[in-house]
């Protein structure tokens, strides 16, 4: 394992995760918790970074809503997202949502609804990921891409507690992720030959052929990225006008 590479810890049991949090220290970028929701809270005492909680129980979310909100955990729905309300019921309790691992399993119409909700709902004050990160990156010209959002970059290490492999659909891979250098570098370098159309895509810099990796979700991601791009441009225009003192409403 690389000595200074960032680490994403993935596990179901806090007893197994905590020693790794101590071992890796500042290298831990995120913790993904796939266990029973009520057990996750102890992590906050020892790790202040991003914790993503994967759960298929809406009841558990509601039951633990106060603590989830206070401890600033992200909920990653492991249940099918079939309508906007499957997301908005979480944000209405002040809990952040990360739909990243569900995007490609969700109907385009539902994604569109959730996007509209995130962008335009007047009372929404909590981020809906990955849309929020993408929008902000586009507004501020931040250099991130979908691989980065999925924490799948060549020099990043997934440390998986338990069976030792990521065998579920969330990570779009069943390969062992002791070190994600495995295969990704070759995939990246082969993109111009493997997916020549990607090289002429105006969202390539943001997607980097993620949407063609393992399965083809190109059309869906293109729509999401284009939609957020238009909104980011609008926000930038308003910000520019505001900076010039043209728009006094801001």
């Amino acid at each position, binding site marked *: 394992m690389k000595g200074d590479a960032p680490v994403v810890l993935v596990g179901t049991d806090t007893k197994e995760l905590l020693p790794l949090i101590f071992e890796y220290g500042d290298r831990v970028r995120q913790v993904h918790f796939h266990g029973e929701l009520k057990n996750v809270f102890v992590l906050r005492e020892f790790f202040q970074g991003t914790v993503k909680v994967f759960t298929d129980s809406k009841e558990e979310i509601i039951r633990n809503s106060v603590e989830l909100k206070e401890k600033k955990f992200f909920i990653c729905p492991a249940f099918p997202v079939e309508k906007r309300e499957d997301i908005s019921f979480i944000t209405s309790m002040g809990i952040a949502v990360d739909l990243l691992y569900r995007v490609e399993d969700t109907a385009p119409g539902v994604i569109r609804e959730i996007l509209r909700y995130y962008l335009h709902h007047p009372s929404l004050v909590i981020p809906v990921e990955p849309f929020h990160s993408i929008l902000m990156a586009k507004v501020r010209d931040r250099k991130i*891409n979908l691989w980065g959002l999925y924490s799948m970059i*060549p020099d990043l290490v997934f440390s998986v507690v338990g069976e030792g492999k990521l065998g579920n659909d969330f990570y779009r891979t069943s390969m062992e992720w002791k070190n994600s250098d495995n295969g990704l*570098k070759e995939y*990246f*370098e082969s*993109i*111009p030959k493997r997916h020549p159309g990607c*090289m*002429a*895509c*105006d969202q*390539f*810099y943001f997607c*980097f052929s993620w949407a063609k990796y393992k399965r083809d979700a190109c059309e869906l991601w293109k729509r999401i990225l284009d939609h957020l791009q238009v909104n980011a441009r609008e926000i930038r225009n308003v910000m520019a006008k505001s900076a010039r003192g043209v728009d006094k409403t801001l």
Partner: protein
Amino acid sequence: MNHLTVIVKPTNRCNANCLYCSAWHPVEEGQTHTMDLETLEILFERVDDWVTHSKQSKAIKFIWHGGEPTLMPLDFFNRVIALQANLEKKHGPRLRMENNIQTNLLFLEKEKLDMLKVLLARDGNGKKSTIGTSYEPLPGVRVLKRGSYNREWERSIALLKENDFPFGIVYVVHKRSIRHIDRVVEIFLEKFPGIGIRFNPLYREGKAAESECESLYITPLEWGDFLVRLYRIWEGLDKKPGWQPLKEVDDFHMKKKSRVCCDHAGRCAVTHLGIDTDGGVYSCGRGIDRKYKSFGNIREKKISEILRSPSRMEMMNRSSFLENTFCRECKWWRYCHGGCPMDAAIANENDIFKRSNFCISRNRFLNTVYGEPVQ
């Protein structure tokens, strides 16, 4: 404001016969050699349309290139001047245009000089844009079909000086320049002490790709070593002249400037276009020379359509591709951005999604001179 540099080649013809000409093409039947006035007018109609239908103001720098652009009849450039004046009158501050020219200066006459005074005038403040020209102090490389190249060129330089034209020089570095670097530098310092000089490596394009030119080829490592030696001379000078790419890299390293030149900035596809004699649009002058994936033709497409062309998008994506792949581990990324796409195309059978062969040169130069990049 949108800034765009448009390199226009109004003609392929040339009155010189330089051994390493990169713009030279074998004559093909039906090939246009000179831009006609209709194509020129369409070009400015397209500019008009682009400005009219855009929310943003535009600043366009035209670089008249070739071939030898001064071989074009005076009428051609007088038409350029008139068309630009009309557009500036129509669009006011929403459109700023300026002209530069890259010329061998051979056989410069008074009429052409008078035309250049108007063409290169900037904002009516009496200042003129810099004329780009090329010079070779070593004999037998830049040659005329008849007569002495350098004698003719120096006559024109004297005329430029008399008429207060600022000028800069491109010098193509080849095998013999490396052998005679001290002599070359001495001549430049003696004859052109305050003049900006851009040192470019010989690249295998046009006539330079032919076997006759092989004896002039330099390796990437030789180019890197040349830059190191040149830098050592340059840094020892009391008043450092504007020798490129040394000065721009040094300014970047010393944080005096935030950007390097087009071939190292990684944004050339965003900032540049090249227009060939027949209206074909490419990435830049070098894209025209290579005929690398046209973005379309100005006679058939609007500028907004050309800017959205898949070929241009490919060029724009090169930088983010390299940054995440072949150049991922390179500490000099911000100094280079993968280099000129056309250098990569020459070295890799038109595959621009590879590093250019001059990556070795840049590493040699930057590692030797600076050691570590500035943070």
